């Protein structure tokens, strides 16, 4: 299979989507955050001048506008850039989009995609480093997607746009330079299918987004110590492929969960609670969570590293559940 760099796969997917469905409109200035490649987005703007619009700095306004446009038949993709800015649009996302289908008794669909870049990016500090997926998972009615590879980002973006539900598409800047296989063929990766990114029999490490890549690195290292780590990537939190997670848990009986949300009420908490209940008789060790520590995100590099779910913290947790 050919290889692409993550940002290429992402833009390719976006181009394919725009070409295939004229209901897709983009509310965005770039799609690539501050990355060096953001200039590439300008070509898309040139090709689809009527379907790409750069909104004012009015998140609640343009997110609500996109939701309303979705209700009236479009398939908007909204780029919120840094995930922290999603908070500005919180009422529209969690209290309008998420509830539309339900409170209308099934009448109203809001097929909008909210795209954002989450997590610790190096110097983002307290106000630009959020991982809002846990807060959003606490809000029924939203699909939540977290790609972690070039193939996944392209394939999941397609499914997101084709979904009839409001979908949160959470990406990570630190993935952009990753190279990996991407099929030539048009591929939509279904939601609710976890992906075993690396097989192993000793410990199940469940990781999301950029943490998948980090855990793969750690797994390589631990293999040298003779520890076989299985890395499972849920890819979508809503819907969640709990079966695949449990299949791995039943095999290894030891679980580490790695995600970038703050610890309390984070994604790892939910996964730990579910697995703890379903796997009560199987688990040989307490489930360990490796997450961002419960402090606001500091600016200074060594401080940021200290609170992050770092390679060494992941490795320690794996060793701990084996001891």
């Amino acid at each position, binding site marked *: 299979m050919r290889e692409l760099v993550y940002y290429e796969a992402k833009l390719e997917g976006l181009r394919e989507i725009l070409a295939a469905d004229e209901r897709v409109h983009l509310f965005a200035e770039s799609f690539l955050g501050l990355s060096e490649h953001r200039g590439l987005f300008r070509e898309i703007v040139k090709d689809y001048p009527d379907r790409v619009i750069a909104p004012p700095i009015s998140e609640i*306004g343009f997110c*609500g*506008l996109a939701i309303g*446009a979705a209700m*009236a038949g*479009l398939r908007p993709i909204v780029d919120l850039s840094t995930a922290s800015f999603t908070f500005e649009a919180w009422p529209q996302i969690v209290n309008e989009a998420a509830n539309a*289908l339900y409170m209308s008794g*099934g009448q*109203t669909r809001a097929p909008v995609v909210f795209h954002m870049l989450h997590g610790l990016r190096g110097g983002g500090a307290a106000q630009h480093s959020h991982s809002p997926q846990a807060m959003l998972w606490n809000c029924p009615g939203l699909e939540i997607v977290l790609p972690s590879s070039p193939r996944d980002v392209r394939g999941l973006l397609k499914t997101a746009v084709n979904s009839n539900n409001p979908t949160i598409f959470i990406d990570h800047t630190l993935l952009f330079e990753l190279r990996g296989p991407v099929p030539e063929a048009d591929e939509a990766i279904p939601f609710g299918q976890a992906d075993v990114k690396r097989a192993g029999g000793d410990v199940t490490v469940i990781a999301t987004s950029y943490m998948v890549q980090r855990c793969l690195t750690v797994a390589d290292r631990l293999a040298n110590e003779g520890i076989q780590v299985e890395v499972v990537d849920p890819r979508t939190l809503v819907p969640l492929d709990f079966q695949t997670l449990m299949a791995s848990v039943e095999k290894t009986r030891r679980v580490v969960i790695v995600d970038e949300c703050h610890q309390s009420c984070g994604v790892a908490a939910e996964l730990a609670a579910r697995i703890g209940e379903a796997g009560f008789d199987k688990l040989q060790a307490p489930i360990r969570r490796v997450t961002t520590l419960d402090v606001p995100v500091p600016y200074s590099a060594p401080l940021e590293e200290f609170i992050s779910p770092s390679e060494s913290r992941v490795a320690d947790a794996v060793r701990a559940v084996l001891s």
Partner: protein
Amino acid sequence: MLPKLPRESLIELCRKMFLIRYFEEALIGLHNEERFKGHYHVYIGQEATGVPAISCLGVGDYLFTTHRNHGHLLARGADPRRLLAEILGRRDGYNKGKGGSFHTNVTSLGFPQTSGVVGGIIPLATGAAYAVRAQKTDRISVCLFGDGALEEGAAAESFNMASLWKLPVLYLCENNGKYGQGKAAGTARSSTMAVYPLTDLPAGYKIPAQQVDGTNAGAVHGVVSEAVKKIRQGGGPQFIEAQTVRWPGGVTNWPVVPIATDAAIAWDVTSVPEAEREWYRDSDPVLIFIRELVEKKQVSREEISEIQQGILGVVSQAVEFAFDSPYPNSETALEDVFA
């Protein structure tokens, strides 16, 4: 002033106004008899805004409304039986009992979302306008909201985009008297809004904005039909502030009906309790409208009586229907989360 419409249409408007009034008087009665629980808001006093305004719209147009939606839905032709069933949380409600009073919407009539969040629909309606323009239709989107919604930043943000992108949206702000009550329109300061007249806010965003007496069906019909025409011709957004005086029965959170509305009151208010008499005499849009209909010889007082009786019958059927409708099965609570 009567709308410039044929007699039949005027009678239709009259029927709609009565329908709203009697529907809600009945609703308040049911609540106060504890036949249902929960919070709701009534449209009484604003009938001469919603009814003629909505009569100006086309079949394909979108309407977004708020917590104060009953009047808009009925004006657009919603079935009072299914509306009431929804308010009671019954299976035959428009939203299968999932929405209730705050959220009743009817997509087949063009209502995509009814939001109980003040200001919540302003971006949504603006977005539907974006969509119909992108789809190259001549549909428009109409956003029906209260004066309080202008205090939410979401309103300002939406006005900005509507203006920048020349979107086909009509903002119809129903100022029901909190602001400028009892004072000359637009001259009084509110304790919660520094912009006065309110039209200065959209005007700042270069959206043509005007005020209208919301108890005057003819005036409302005139400005709304004119605005709709301009929007449909590609003129971009328009803003209208319709001013009404808040119905004394609805000033608290829990409405009470001072007196059941009867056409006779239009010509003799002595039966109305003194505290509310002024409102029924000077500000009741339904009574103003039928008084004019009779004065201008469009209908006789007898005909009005007949219409009134007919509507009362419709409302009592709605009450019967709604209470006969069963509650939804509990398990349906798990449906409609995802499409």
